[in-house]
Each structure stands twice: as C-alpha cells, then as structure tokens.
C-alpha cells in the first residue's frame, strides 16, 4: 500500500465503485475500504505530504500531524462500523453517498489549508443530505431541504470568513486562527453551526431523526466531529467557547427529558456531548484538548452504538417513539444488552469509555479555576445519565409492555453494535493502552483514582435513584405523543407565518396600486391610439406638397430667429 496516497482517495473511489457493483462484491469493497485506508495510515509519513500551487497559493491537500492522524483513525473506525451496520440494505444511493461522506470527513481532517478544507466541508454537506432524503418520506424530504439550507449556510459563511482571512493575512494554511484574526468570527460561526452551537443547533435535532436507520449512524459520526477537529486546530483557547460549550451541555438535556422520539433524544444528547468538547476547546490546556479529542473519539463509538440500537428498533418496529415502544427486551435481548453498554458509556460509568475522557475536560475546568463552569458540567453529566443512560434503554426495551414482539435485527447490524460495544469497554478498562496512546497533546492523566471512581459512582447511582423514585411515585413526566418546539420553529412556522401575514397586508395594497397603474396606462394607450391608431390624425397620409410647405415655414422661422 503506497503511503503517500491521499487518505480520502480510497473512499471516493469506493463511492464510485459502490455505484456500479452489487451484492457481496459491493459489501466486500465497502468493508475493505476503511480497513485498507487505516492500514495505509499506519505507514503514512508526517508533515505536508502533498502540495500544489494554484493561482499563487500553496494548497496542501494532505497534511499529517498527530491531531489529524487521531481523527483520521477515528473516521476510518467509524466508517467501518457504520458500513458493517448498513450492509443489509440494497439502497445504492445510500451506499454511494455514505462512502463519499466518509471520504469528505477524512479529507477535511487531513486538509492542510483552508481552501481544501472548505471543499471537503461542502462534500460533507452535499453527500450527507442524501442519507436523510434516502428515507423517502415527505417529512424526510422536507427535513433534508432544511438541513441542506443550513449546511450550505455554514459553507458560505466559512467561505466568506476564509476570503477575509486570506486576503488580510495572505495565509491559506490551516493552523491556529483565533478570534482576533480578520474573518475569525465568521469562521468560528461556520464551524459552530456544524457542531450545534446554541440557536444554530436545530438542523441536528430536526434532520437526524428523519434520516434512514443506517444513515443516522454515519451522520452522527462525521459532520459534528469534523467541526470539533477544526475548532480544536484553529480556535483552541478561545474563551467564549467555554461558555458556549457549557450552555450546550445544559439546555438540550431539558428537551431530551420531554422528547418522545428516541432518536431525537439522542440528537439532543449529541449537542450535550459536543458541549463538553467545545468547552474543552475553549479551556485550551493540553489536558482539556486531550479530553476534547478523546471524548470526540468515544462519542463516535457510544453515540454510534446508541444510534445503531435505535436504528435496529426502527428497522424492526418502524418507530422510535417512546410512547409506542416498551418491553422489547423480551424478543431483542442482544440489542438491549448492546444498547445498555452504549448507555453506560455515555453516562461515564467507570470501566466504560465515557468515564476516561469526559473527566479530563472537567478536571481541566477545575485546574483553570472555572468553578461555575465545572458545576454546570457536573449537572450536565447527571443529565446525560437521565436521558441517554436511562431513558433510551428503559423506554425502548423495558417500561410498559407495548405488545410488540420484533425479532433481533439482521446479523450485520448486531455485529456492528458488538464491535462498538467491545471498543467502549476495552477503552474504558484499558485507556492507557488504547485511546491515550493516540492523544496528540502532552498531558498525563489517570482516570482510575479511588476518589474519582467513588464520587462518580455516587453521582450516577443517586441520579438513577432519583429517576426511578420519580417513576415509581408518578412524578416522572409521561411519554406524550407530541412535538416540542425548538429554534427550527423560527423557519418552519414564524417566517412562513410572517410571509403569509405580510402577503395578507400587502396584497390589497398591491392590487390597488396595480389597478391604478393599469387604469392610467390604459388611458395613455387610448390617447395614443386616438392620434396614432388607424384613422388617427397623426397616422393619416399627407400629400408631399404639405410637407414642403411646412419645411419652408420652419426655415422661415429659423431665419427670423437667427437674425433677431
């Protein structure tokens, strides 16, 4: 395997091949792509491996360092799991777009300059939307368009930001940018949109739950993690990110408690987890950044696992509404067990992978004196336990018996979940031998400290105690067949309503104005017709002699005026 091959190339080639092959051959090709790609990464060099000159700028399509390499491995691993999970579908559109999407993500993290990064950023948008449309329901088509609109918005904002930045600094390399740099705010806004900044997050909770069961697994792995990567590289230590991140951990958990669609609960949960990462980027210390990238790594595994388990439920029952589920553990015991591993991991229970990464960010917040932020993060940690740790597995697989008796999902789905679950446990038990070896920044951290383990167990067990106490005493909110308004309401309801209202007000005015203008114009036309129309005085034919007389008269007037 040549080591100077651009890492994104195998995926883009696989996307083309997936379009023309079928059956086992296609399955083998798609499974082999991330494996071969990851093997090639082990032998890849470091530094700027590929550079080209375009219009006087040096573009670096492939730049390898520890940070990009870690995300590179992560995306290959994620792609492998998601491809395995999606093998049973024979929807060519989804397979092609999923490979292109993975290629876009890999390309973005190895992009050494802003222009290449922008191109892959757009590949991410344009390929991922098909994973939503591929559900082929009217809701999915509409949600896909809304998703695409915001993703393109992010792309355009990024382009504007990088044009300002490149014009002002003459620099195209993608390194630390910072908020003080010209165009810095535009770039961070573009990146923030894709990683769910508050009030820019609604595309995520709107579109991900509408995607196909397998598409959601790809979606939850790449777009937001690319944004986390880019923020880590270009905005580490930007203080506003601390507060934005803390707020991101805080507000979605309230929505997650009352949300009925379990894949939407996971989408809110995703914003909460991204909040931890954004907060870590804002803190900017080596420990915090290591926490951020390792949490991104783990999030791909446990959030992927949770989305896979809910995708399995969706595939087998046709719904992920909590109000219509329950009691599935009776016929889906394996999926139940795998889902619980994901739930335990995201809740940061010791010996599961979330525990070894989230605590780094929280420790960094304490070390840097951000006590109030730490309290927020601690509250958000308990909140995760409630909605992702308990609500997801409990309402899908236990709770009240829905009477549904679905079979276990296809074997490839279970295998993919098993791979992710095994990794969640292996990383949780042996962090130093696995995940921590990939960490790009220099900071030592030991999660398995007795105080830390005991306090974490206390926090989580009493959180669970509170949930079950409220459930047993009827204080816990019942699952309602309802939707909850979020910021997407602004463009799904408010703007259309405003436009309709404006139309109602303006249309009489317009009608009146139009009638007035038409009346005036009709008068003008009638007037012209009178004089110039057939039989009009000015359209009549006149003898040549009368013209000669008039010329003579004009000449005489001119001569008189001239001599006066």
């Amino acid at each position, binding site marked *: 395997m040549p080591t100077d091959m651009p890492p994104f190339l195998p995926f883009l080639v696989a996307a083309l091949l997936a379009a023309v092959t079928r059956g086992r051959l296609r399955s083998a090709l798609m499974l082999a792509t991330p494996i071969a790609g990851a093997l090639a990464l082990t032998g890849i060099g470091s530094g700027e491996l590929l550079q080209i000159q375009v219009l006087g700028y040096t573009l670096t399509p492939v730049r390898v360092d520890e940070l990009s390499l870690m995300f590179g491995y992560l995306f290959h691993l994620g792609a492998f799991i998601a491809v395995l999970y999606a093998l049973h579908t024979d929807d060519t559109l989804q397979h092609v777009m999923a490979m292109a999407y993975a290629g876009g993500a890999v390309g973005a993290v190895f992009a050494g300059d802003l222009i290449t990064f922008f191109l892959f950023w757009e590949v991410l948008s344009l390929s991922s939307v098909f994973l939503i449309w591929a559900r082929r329901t009217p809701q999915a088509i509409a949600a896909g*368009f809304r998703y695409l609109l915001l993703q393109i918005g992010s792309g355009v904002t990024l382009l504007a930001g990088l044009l300002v930045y490149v014009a002002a600094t003459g620099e195209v390399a993608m390194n630390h940018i910072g908020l003080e740099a010209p165009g810095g705010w535009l770039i961070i806004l573009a990146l923030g949109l894709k990683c769910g900044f508050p009030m820019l997050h609604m595309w995520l909770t709107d579109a991900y739950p509408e995607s196909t069961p397998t598409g959601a697994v790809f979606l939850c792995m790449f777009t937001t993690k690319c944004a986390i990567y880019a923020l880590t590289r270009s905005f580490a230590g930007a203080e506003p990110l601390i507060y934005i991140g803390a707020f991101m951990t805080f507000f979605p958990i309230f929505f997650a408690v009352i949300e009925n669609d379990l894949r939407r609960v996971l989408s809110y949960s995703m914003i909460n987890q991204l909040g931890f990462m954004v907060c870590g980027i804002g803190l900017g210390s080596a420990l915090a950044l290591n926490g951020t990238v390792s949490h991104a790594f783990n999030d791909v595994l446990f959030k992927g696992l949770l989305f896979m388990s809910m995708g399995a439920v969706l595939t087998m029952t046709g719904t992920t509404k909590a109000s219509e589920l329950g009691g599935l553990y009776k016929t889906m015991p394996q999926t139940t067990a795998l889902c619980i591993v994901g739930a335990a991991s995201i809740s940061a229970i010791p010996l599961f992978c979330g525990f070894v990464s989230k605590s780094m960010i929280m420790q960094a917040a304490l070390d840097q004196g951000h006590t109030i932020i730490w309290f927020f993060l*601690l509250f958000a940690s308990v909140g995760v336990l409630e909605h992702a740790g308990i609500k997801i597995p409990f309402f899908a697989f236990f709770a009240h018996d829905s009477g549904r008796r679905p079979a276990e999902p296809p074997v490839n789905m279970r295998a993919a979940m098993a791979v992710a679950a095994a990794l969640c446990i292996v990383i949780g038990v042996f962090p130093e031998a696995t995940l921590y070896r990939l960490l790009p920044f220099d900071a030592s951290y030991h999660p398995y400290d007795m105080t830390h383990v005991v306090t974490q167990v206390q926090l*989580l*067990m009493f959180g669970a105690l509170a949930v079950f106490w409220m459930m047993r005493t009827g204080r816990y909110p019942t699952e309602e067949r309802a939707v909850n308004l979020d910021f997407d309401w602004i463009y799904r309801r408010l703007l259309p309503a405003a436009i309709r209202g404006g139309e109602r007000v303006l249309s009489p005015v317009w009608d009146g104005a139009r009638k007035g203008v038409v009346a005036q114009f009709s008068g003008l036309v009638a007037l012209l017709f009178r004089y110039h129309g057939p039989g009009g005085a000015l359209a009549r034919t006149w003898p040549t002699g009368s013209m000669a007389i008039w010329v003579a008269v004009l000449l005489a007037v001119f001569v008189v005026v001239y001599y006066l």
Partner: protein
Amino acid sequence: METPREPKRYLDNPENVTRLWRRFVMACAVVAALDLFGLLGIVYHRHASLFVEGLPGFYWGWGFVGIVFLVFGAIQLRRFVMRPENYYERPGDAD
C-alpha cells in the same frame, strides 16, 4: 388454534421489580456510606480540589437533586414548547 403462551419473565412480576428496587436503594446507601471511609482515611484517602467537593454527601446529593431539578424543569418547559404531534403537518404549512 391457540397461540403459544409466552413464558412469564422475571420482570413481569411486580414483586420482583420491587425487590430489585429495594436492593438498588440499599446499594445506594452503601455507596453513600463510602464517604465516611474517605473522610476517615480508611480504604482510600479522599482528595478534593474545591471545598464543597470534599464535603461528605456532595456528589450523591448533587446527583439526586440535579435529576429532580432537571425533571421538574423539563416539566415546566413542556408548558411552553409542547404541541400536538401533527403540529408541523397542517395543510398549507410551508414545509
């Protein structure tokens, strides 16, 4: 033809659920009591970066109160944001 009856499962019996619940409460009590060991320096030595964090009962109290606050907060949030399931699907809607 009669459909085969499902086997009765452990969790189908409410008594078993209550039994599990009681065991869980007891386990929580044991875990809470670990604070005493830490305080006295037996079994493990408890260290803390903040004063409140070192107080016995801080973590389990925070866990319990945090969840109660979260759930009651969410119930209040429902009053403002909850709409019927077909809210966005009414005829004439822009999407």
